[in-house]
């Protein structure tokens, strides 16, 4: 079969599996909503302060929520042996890995993106700032999945990779977080945001081309 068929088959299978485990999809979303809701409660009656820090709250919550669902990317495939099947396919492993990451991105980021307008409104964010926030999330969330995949692949062999995963991955998320919050900050003060968004897009291109390859190597190492 062609590479394209295999690529689509991997995405289809992961989406189908997620549909069969619908409950697991809710968890990161509920976590995201909960974390964001805790801030107004903890801050007290400070609507202006809340409005000021809302983008940061949403970004950090989205980052942690994505980390929560990260482990599932390869873990169950590793445990039931279907990862070997994928590694032993004649197609380039890095592209099949990319297919898996795309499926993971669709499943972990889309619900969060859809929920963000409601959450942002709840925190009193202005519509134009929210739009910028959504664009940064759209550009940044794939980066979370792409970088996370390397760390997941590296920690597969460990029984409890969860905490190590966070330690490995969170520092790598920092550049993206800086440019994303920079863009939203600039939008809030009415400054041009083009530069920040270009940097985000550049980070996305860089990770999109390099990380699947690194993930494939890490997977082979974990399996040997």
């Amino acid at each position, binding site marked *: *079969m062609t590479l394209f068929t295999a690529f689509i088959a*991997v995405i289809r299978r992961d989406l189908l599996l997620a549909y069969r485990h619908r409950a697991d999809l809710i968890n990161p979303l509920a976590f995201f909503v909960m974390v964001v809701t805790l801030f107004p409660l903890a801050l007290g009656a400070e609507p202006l302060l809340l409005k000021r820090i809302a983008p940061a709250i949403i970004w950090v919550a989205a980052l942690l929520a994505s980390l929560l669902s990260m482990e599932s990317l390869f873990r169950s495939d590793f445990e*039931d*042996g*279907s990862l070997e099947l*994928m590694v*032993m396919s*004649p197609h380039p492993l890095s592209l099949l890995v990319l297919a898996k990451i795309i499926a993971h991105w669709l499943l972990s980021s889309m619900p969060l993106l859809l929920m963000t307008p409601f959450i942002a409104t709840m925190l009193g964010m202005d519509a134009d700032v929210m739009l910028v926030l959504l664009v940064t999330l759209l550009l940044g969330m794939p980066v979370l999945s792409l970088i996370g995949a390397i760390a997941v692949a590296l920690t597969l062999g460990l029984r409890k990779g969860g905490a190590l995963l966070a330690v490995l991955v969170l520092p790598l998320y920092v550049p993206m977080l800086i440019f994303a919050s920079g863009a939203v900050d600039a939008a809030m003060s009415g400054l041009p945001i083009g530069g920040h968004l270009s940097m985000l897009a550049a980070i996305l291109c860089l990770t999109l081309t390099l990380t699947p390859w690194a993930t494939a190597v890490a997977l082979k190492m974990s399996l040997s």
Partner: protein
Amino acid sequence: MSEFTLEARQLACQRDDRVLFSGLNFHLYSGQILLIEGVNGAGKTSLLRILTGLRQPDEGELFWNAQALDDLGAAFYQDVTYIGHSNGLKDTLTAQENLRYVQALATPALSIDESLQQVHLNGYQDTLVRYLSAGQRRRLALARLLCTHKTLWILDEPFTSLDRVSIQLIEQLMTAHVKQGGMVIMTSHHETHLPATLVQKIELRR
């Protein structure tokens, strides 16, 4: 029909500083079955994983059709399939969905319905793997061999949890595959009833 060969030169494998085997040489040609025997912990599974290319040998080299495995890379997997201890099936997908995924990653041979029929699982197309018994799962995993076109089958304990009838069935399928120019490498604790003329044996001793 083109001839295939797998050659091992001076293979060695260590685990935790313990040498499992060393200086292992063999040639395997189309139409042959290689049976790897040995007590528990002798390194049978390690050897199989080396032969699949998933694990690097500590010493020695492997050649597929006189080309080194390291140079072949993913092209080797055009011809090779491996079924390990775990079946590589998804519990929450149906038998058909599992095989469809397998076919998409390789060159399809028999149709899914035909493959299921061959391993006596006809009628289980739309059953979730979760509801299959251990023996049925093993047979479904072995159906992967039939629904894709691969020359070399590498099987780790293929007869685990199979009853006598199923073992006989799988042995027939293996014999048929080998007679069509295929190759099989397997480990087994069970007494096998494969035609002796086709079988080569390697015994790993500690």
